[in-house]
């Protein structure tokens, strides 16, 4: 049957090619949007896993509202059940690029740097130590971009820092992080004693959710985000992002599917007499269904394959092009490829369902009378 299916597709070369291109375009969109979504997903998941055991405390007026200072750390530490607490100042590294590169300065108390970055490990060197002021630990992407090694000098905001440690690759925001002592960061950016967040580490036997609420009640002017709340919030943000990106890809693929349906309806209509002949010479209803559905699915398969190939190549080219700016926008995962191919097959098969049903239900006598 496959030879007949291929024959029928190749006999209408231009029409089939256009239909396959329609599906390919849709699947291309699914791949590009999906790859963007996958990249954000992976970065999100890894970033969250790094801070998943900590309670995030920020100013009541929000991260950008200010008002959160070092003093609050001691207030947080006084809350029963808090094992440790430290403030972090977060700002963009490339101020001229509006933070689009994703590179961030993290000001952390030097003696807490290993705790703050846990479970991220060092590739070489050491974490920050007490007494460090112009020392820096850099993420793996920063190291590659600036060709840094332990001992290298690194310019930040017109000041030279000595690289003391390089982090292992994590696939998270920490790859693009520049970690310097908190006080140095506050001075460098004239932030007084402000911090962006305070992280509280709960005691082993303390329920983080309860502790989160307790901190919010005990430390005035703060809001908290427990590990669970952070996860939910992150999932929601990611879900919205995924829905927007993937649905735009799916929409394009559905339009491709409609072009298959249109082609198949035209094909079935043109071949009415042929189906009559097939029925007269003994073709079963399922033979006609298989033939028509097979054509639509095969076009879906070809369109899907083409869309995936073009999508993967395009994503690779864009990633390579953006590599100079250290922005990674896309990530192709096996899951994405499988979903895209299944979707292409599904679109093809679903679009062929109605034309196939029409073809299979034709009365042979009526079909033979068709001009």
């Amino acid at each position, binding site marked *: 049957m496959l030879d007949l299916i291929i024959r029928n597709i190749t006999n209408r070369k231009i029409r089939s090619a256009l239909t396959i291109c329609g599906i390919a375009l849709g699947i291309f969109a699914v791949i590009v949007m999906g790859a963007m979504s996958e990249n954000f997903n992976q970065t999100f998941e890894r970033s969250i896993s790094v801070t998943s055991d900590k309670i995030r405390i920020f100013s009541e007026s929000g991260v950008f509202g200010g008002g959160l200072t070092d003093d609050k750390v001691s207030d947080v530490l006084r809350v029963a059940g808090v094992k440790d607490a430290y403030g972090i100042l977060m700002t963009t590294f490339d101020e001229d690029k509006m933070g689009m590169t994703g590179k961030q300065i993290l000001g952390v108390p030097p003696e807490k740097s290993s705790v703050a970055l846990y479970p991220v490990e060092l590739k070489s060197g050491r974490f920050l130590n007490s007494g460090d002021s112009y020392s820096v630990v850099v993420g793996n992407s920063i190291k590659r971009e600036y060709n840094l090694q332990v001992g290298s000098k690194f310019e930040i905001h017109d000041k030279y820092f000595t690289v003391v440690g390089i982090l292992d690759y994590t696939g998270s925001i920490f790859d693009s992080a520049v970690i310097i002592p908190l006080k140095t960061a506050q001075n460098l950016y004239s932030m007084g004693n402000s911090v962006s967040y305070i992280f509280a580490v709960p005691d082993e036997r303390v329920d983080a959710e309860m502790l989160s609420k307790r901190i919010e009640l005990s430390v005035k002017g703060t809001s908290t985000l427990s590990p669970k709340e952070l996860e939910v919030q992150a999932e929601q943000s990611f879900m919205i992002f995924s829905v927007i990106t993937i649905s735009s890809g799916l929409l394009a693929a559905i339009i491709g599917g409609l072009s298959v349906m249109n082609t198949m309806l035209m094909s079935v209509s043109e071949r009415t007499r*042929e189906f*009559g*002949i097939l029925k*007269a010479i003994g073709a079963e209803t399922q033979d006609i269904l298989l033939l028509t559905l097979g054509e639509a699915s095969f076009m879906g398969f070809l369109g899907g394959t083409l869309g995936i190939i073009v999508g993967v190549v395009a994503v690779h080219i864009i990633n390579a092009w953006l590599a100079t700016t250290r922005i990674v926008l896309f990530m192709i995962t096996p899951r994405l490829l499988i979903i895209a191919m299944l979707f292409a097959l599904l679109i093809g098969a679903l679009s062929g369902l109605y034309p196939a049903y029409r073809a299979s239900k034709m009365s042979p006598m009526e079909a*033979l009378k068709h001009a």
Partner: protein
Amino acid sequence: MPDAGIGGESLETKEKDENKNRWGNEGQKVIMLVENLSKTYMQGKIPVHALRCACITVRKGDLLAIMGPSGSGKSTLLALIGTLEKATDGKIILDGIDLTSVPENLLPRVRREKIGFIFQHYNLVPTLSALENVELAMRFSKVTKKDRRERAKSLLEDLGLGDRLNHKPAELSGGEQQRVSIARALANKPALILADEPTGEVDTKTRDSIIRVFKELSQKGQTIIVVTHDPEVAKECSRVLRIRDGMIKD
């Protein structure tokens, strides 16, 4: 076709005397019996009797012509025998099978195994070669690729198309296309071949060659029913049935 729910009893007892059998088929078994076959269409609320109480007995090897003016019911009779349409009343017993009681889902199998069709307009699949068109009929019978290719080739060679095997219908003359159509009808070794105006589109020379093929097949025991307007075709057949206003006259 035992699962068609039809007994395979001999129909010898039901056969009628057929003295007009030019090929000496009197001693042959009855291959098809049509009893009181009727077909009524509804045109709005008005019933149109396309065929009324037709009774026909056909023996193995008969070459039977059905003649009649346009709209007389010839093609309806052929469509009913070919199971392409459902009869309003009556019975068609072909090779021991009551076609009128075969369930709808088994009709394709009946058409595959018992009936071969030849159409006025050849009705070949335009995108397939002569060989593939003949193979197509066997494809649905699940004949292996090797066997169907060999049989299709042999049939086309027997019909003088050995050098046209890979030609598409558009590359063949009308006569050649009709011979491909005959080969396709013979592919599954049917009990009966139904030919609807097979010479309607060809010149007299081709018509004569088609008739010659039919006569040869008939002499080898193949039963053929030919619907025709052409008296020259009818003259060459072993029997002629005339049909007018849905009524058959033997």
